[in-house]
C-alpha cells in the first residue's frame, strides 16, 4: 500500500499556509455542482457540514440519533484547548504543538499537530461569534483553566458542559444551513456501507432506523465524522450508541485503519455496581488534587471504610510513587488501581473499585472549600451511587473513554480511498499514543471548520469526477450485500441476545487488551474473539422485523462489527511490543513501572490493510520523522 501522507515541504511553521496557497480552488459558481455526504453530526461532522454548505456545496448529513444535537460530543465536560495565551503565561503555537506531541508519547505526525495548534485560536473566535457562552472573568474577558499535561492555562470552558455548548454552536450553524436548504439532514439514519466506484468513494448505503428502509445516497465525496470505538470494551464512558460500524465498513472497502490499539484509560470513573451495568460515568480527574486513593491491606476485607483503621489502609499511590502520590500520571494510577483489585483488595460490589478519600482534605480545608471545588461532582456521584462522599470515601475505577486510533488519513484528511475523508475522533491523526485532556474538542472543530473546507475543494478541483448516480451497478451490489447481512442477522435463530455477546466481547477485550497487555493474554484474546464471532452468527437471537424500528437489530449489527474490529485491535496491540502512551505492554516497562518506548523499533504508525475475509490483514507502516521536536522520554517527574 502506498502511504503518502502528502505533507507539504518547507519549515513546519509555513507548511499549512504554503499548502493553502498551493491547493486548487473551486470557482464559487461551480461549488453547487458538487455533492458532499457527511456522516456524523458531532463536533467534527456538524462543523464540517455547516462550513461546506456555507461555501456553496450541496451537503447531505446523516446521524443515527434522533437529532443532530445529540451526538456523543455533547457529553464532553472539561474544556477545549487553544494557544491564545490570554493569561500571559507563556503559551504559544509552538508550546501547544510541543505539549501535544509529547503528550502523545511521540507517536503523532508532527505536521498535522502543528497545524492543529495553528488553527486552535480561530476555533475560539468562531465559537464566541456563534454565541457560545464560555466562562468569563469579572472584567468580561474569557476565563481559562489548566488541564493535565500542560504547564499553562489554555483551556476554555463553559461550566461543566463545554462539549454541549460547542456542539450546540455547531448544530446551530448546521440548522441554519438546513433552514436555507443547503444541507439535507437525515436523522435516525445509519450508514452501513461505503460505495466505491472506480477507486473513489461515491456514496453510502444507509438504513432508515424508523422504517427499516435500505437506501443509497450518491455524492462526489464522502466525509466520515463518526466518532470513536471505545464501546468495543462494552463498558466505557461513551454514549451507548457509539460504535465502529462506519470505520469497520470503510476499512473493508479499502480504507486503512491506523493504530487501533491506542486506547487510553481514564483513572477516575464510577465503578460498576452489578451485572446490569450499562455504561460508566466519568468523574473529573481534578478530584485527585484533594482525594487520597487507598485500599485495605488485607485481602477480601469487607468492613466498611470507617471501620478500617489507618494502620490497615494501603495508600497505594503514595506508597509506590512517593514523589507524585495521588497525582501520578493517568496510566500509572489506573494500572496501580487494577493491580490492587487483581490482588483481591478492591472495594465495593464486585471488588473492582478503590477508595478516593476526602476526609483529610475536608478536615484540613473544611467542607465548604471542598464543596466549592467539587460540589457538582459530589452531587453527581451521590445521584448515581446513593452515597454521600462528604461522609464516606468515593469509590472509583478506571474506564476506557476515547480512541486515538482510527482510519488513516493524509495531511488533507483523506483516507486511503480517494474521496473518502475522515474527521474528528474517527481518524487517527493528531494525538499519537495518548490524548491530552481538552484536545479532542479542539481537533474535531479544527478538522470541521478549518481544514476540510480547504482540502475538499482541492480534491474536487484536481480530479475529473464524472457524475455517478445510485442506479449504478456498484450501488446495487453493495445494497444487496447490506440486505444479505441484515438477513443473516435476523435469521440466525439462536438463543443469545446481541447485548450478551457485546458484554462477553467487552470482557475479553478489557481483560486482555485493556489497561495492561501482554503477549500471552493478547494471543488468548485472538483465539477467543473469532470463536465468539462464530458463535454470534450461529447463536444470535433477534426479535421484531428488519422493515421496522428495531433497536435489537441495530445493536446486533454494531456488535457484529465490534466482533471483527476487536481482533484488529488485539493484533495491533500484539505487534506493538513497546509501551507508549495509552498502550502498556507489561514486557516493556521501566523499573518504576513507567512505559518504556522503543523508538528504534516503533517510531511509526501501524496502518492495517484489509486483505479479504478470513485472511490476515496486511501491516503497513507510516514512519514518523521528528524534524522539529527532539524525541525524549516522556517524564512528568
Amino acid at each position: 500500500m502506498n502511504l503518502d501522507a502528502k505533507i507539504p515541504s518547507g519549515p513546519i511553521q509555513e507548511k499549512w499556509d504554503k499548502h493553502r496557497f498551493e491547493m486548487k480552488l473551486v470557482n464559487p459558481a461551480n461549488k453547487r455542482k458538487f455533492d458532499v455526504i457527511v456522516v456524523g453530526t458531532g463536533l467534527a461532522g456538524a462543523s464540517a457540514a455547516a462550513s461546506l454548505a456555507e461555501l456553496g456545496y450541496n451537503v447531505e448529513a446523516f446521524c443515527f440519533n434522533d437529532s443532530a444535537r445529540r451526538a456523543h460530543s455533547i457529553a464532553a465536560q472539561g474544556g477545549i484547548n487553544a494557544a491564545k495565551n490570554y493569561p500571559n503565561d507563556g503559551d504559544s503555537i509552538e508550546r501547544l504543538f510541543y505539549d501535544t506531541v509529547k503528550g502523545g508519547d511521540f507517536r503523532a505526525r508532527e505536521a498535522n499537530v502543528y497545524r492543529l495548534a495553528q488553527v486552535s485560536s480561530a476555533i475560539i473566535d468562531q465559537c464566541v461569534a456563534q454565541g457560545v457562552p464560555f466562562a468569563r472573568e469579572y472584567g468580561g474577558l474569557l476565563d481559562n483553566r489548566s488541564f493535565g499535561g500542560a504547564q499553562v492555562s489554555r483551556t476554555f470552558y463553559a461550566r461543566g458542559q463545554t462539549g454541549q455548548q460547542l456542539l450546540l454552536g455547531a448544530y446551530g450553524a448546521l440548522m441554519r444551513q438546513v433552514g436555507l436548504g443547503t444541507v439535507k439532514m437525515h436523522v435516525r439514519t445509519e450508514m452501513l456501507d461505503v460505495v466505491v466506484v472506480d477507486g473513489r468513494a461515491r456514496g453510502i448505503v444507509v438504513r432508515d432506523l424508523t422504517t427499516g428502509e435500505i437506501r443509497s445516497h450518491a455524492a462526489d465525496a464522502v466525509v466520515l465524522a463518526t466518532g470513536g470505538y471505545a464501546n468495543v470494551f462494552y463498558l466505557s464512558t461513551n454514549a451507548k450508541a457509539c460504535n465502529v460500524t462506519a470505520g469497520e465498513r470503510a476499512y473493508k472497502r479499502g480504507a486503512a485503519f491506523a493504530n487501533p490499539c491506542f486506547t487510553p484509560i481514564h483513572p477516575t470513573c464510577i465503578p460498576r455496581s452489578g451485572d446490569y451495568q450499562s455504561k460508566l460515568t466519568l468523574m473529573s480527574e481534578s478530584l485527585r488534587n484533594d482525594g487520597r486513593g487507598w485500599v485495605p491491606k488485607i485481602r477480601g476485607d469487607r468492613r466498611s471504610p470507617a471501620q478500617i483503621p489507618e494502620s490497615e489502609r494501603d495508600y497505594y499511590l503514595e506508597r509506590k510513587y512517593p514523589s507524585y502520590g495521588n497525582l501520578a500520571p493517568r496510566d500509572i494510577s489506573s494500572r496501580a488501581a487494577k493491580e490492587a483489585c487483581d490482588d483481591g483488595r478492591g472495594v465495593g460490589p464486585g471488588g473492582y473499585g478503590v477508595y478516593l478519600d476526602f476526609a483529610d482534605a475536608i478536615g484540613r480545608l473544611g467542607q465548604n472549600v471542598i464543596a466549592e471545588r467539587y460540589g457538582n461532582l459530589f452531587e453527581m456521584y451521590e445521584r448515581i451511587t446513593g452515597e454521600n462522599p462528604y461522609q464516606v470515601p468515593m469509590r472509583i475505577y478506571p474506564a476506557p473513554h476515547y480512541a486515538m486510533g482510527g482510519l488513516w488519513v493524509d495531511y488533507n484528511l483523506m483516507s486511503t480511498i480517494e474521496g473518502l475523508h475522515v474527521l474528528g475522533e474517527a481518524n487517527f491523526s493528531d494525538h499519537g499514543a495518548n490524548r491530552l485532556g481538552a484536545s479532542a474538542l479542539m481537533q474535531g472543530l479544527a478538522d470541521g471548520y478549518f481544514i476540510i473546507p480547504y482540502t475538499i475543494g482541492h480534491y474536487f478541483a484536481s480530479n475529473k469526477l464524472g457524475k455517478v448516480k445510485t442506479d449504478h451497478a456498484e450501488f446495487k451490489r453493495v445494497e444487496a450485500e447490506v440486505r444479505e447481512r441484515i438477513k443473516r442477522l435476523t435469521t440466525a435463530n439462536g438463543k443469545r441476545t446481541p447485548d450478551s455477546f457485546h458484554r462477553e466481547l467487552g470482557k475479553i477485550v478489557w481483560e486482555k487488551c485493556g489497561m495492561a497487555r501482554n503477549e500471552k493474554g493478547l494471543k488468548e484474546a485472538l483465539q477467543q474473539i473469532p470463536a465468539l464471532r462464530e458463535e454470534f452468527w450461529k447463536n444470535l437471537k433477534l426479535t421484531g422485523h428488519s422493515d421496522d424500528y428495531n433497536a435489537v437489530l441495530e445493536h446486533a449489527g454494531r456488535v457484529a462489527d465490534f466482533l471483527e474490529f476487536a481482533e484488529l485491535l488485539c493484533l495491533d496491540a500484539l505487534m506493538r511490543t513497546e509501551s507508549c502512551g495509552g498502550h502498556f505492554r507489561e514486557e516493556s516497562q521501566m523499573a518504576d513501572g513507567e512505559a518504556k518506548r522503543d523508538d528504534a523499533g516503533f517510531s511509526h504508525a501501524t496502518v492495517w490493510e484489509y486483505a479479504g475475509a478470513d485472511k490476515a490483514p496486511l501491516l503497513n507502516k507510516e514512519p514518523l520523522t521528528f524534524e522539529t521536536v527532539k524525541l525524549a522520554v516522556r517524564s512528568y517527574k
Partner: protein
Amino acid sequence: MKLTLRIWRQKNPRERGAFVTFPLADVSEHMSFLEMLDVLNESLIDKGQEPVAFDHDCREGICGACSLMINGYPHGPLPATTTCQLHMRHFKDGDVITVEPWRARAFPVLKDCVTDRSALDRIMQAGGFVSVRTGGTPDANALPIRKKEADLSMDAAACIGCGACVAACKNASAMLFVAAKVGQFAHLPQGQAERKERVRRMTGQMDKEGFGNCTNTYDCEGACPKQINRRFIAEMNRDFICAELTE
C-alpha cells in the same frame, strides 16, 4: 425488589397503543431506571417478544434523548433529574410504575415510548443561531461581556432539548424550550443583531408545529431536568411584543 410495570406499547404511529403490564423481580436499588428497563428487555427478547422501545444515548443527563413519562411526571418524580439519572432506590418493593411516552400533538409516537421530536429541530432551523459564517470572526476577547450576563446566557443555554417542558404542559406548549434559546442570545451582544427576527421566527415556527399556547402555569419549569428558569419566558414575551410593535 419486585415491581409491576405498566408500559405503553404501540406498534407504529398509525396503530392505537395500550398499556401492557409486566411483573419484574430482582430489581436492585443501584440500577438506573433505564438499566431496569434493559433487564426487562433482555428477558423479553429471551422469551421471543419485542423489547420496549425507548430513546436514550448518553445516560449522563446531557444528550436529551431519554424521554419517559414516569407515573405521570416527565423524567419521573425527582426534581432536576433526567430519566437516565433516576435510580431505582427512589422506588420501593411492590410499586406499580406507569411508563409512557411524551404526549403532545407535535411529538407523534413512533413506537412504544419513542416519539418524533423533530419539531424542535425545525424551530431551531427557524432562528436558533447567530448568523455567522465560518472564518473571519473577530478575536474572542475583542468583545467583553459582563459576567452576570454571560452567566445568565449559560443558564438558558443549559437546555438539553428533551421536550420534558412540552410533556409537562397541559397545553403542550414549547415556550420554555424556545425561550431558553432566545434567552441565551438575548443576553449576549452577539445575539442582538437578529434579536427581533429570531423571536418572531422561532415562535412562528412553534405555532406552526402544533404546540399549544402558554397559560403561565409553569409546570415546564418544574419538570425541566436542567431547571431552566421561567424568567426566560417572561423575557421572551417582552422581546416578542417589542418586535411585533416595532417591525
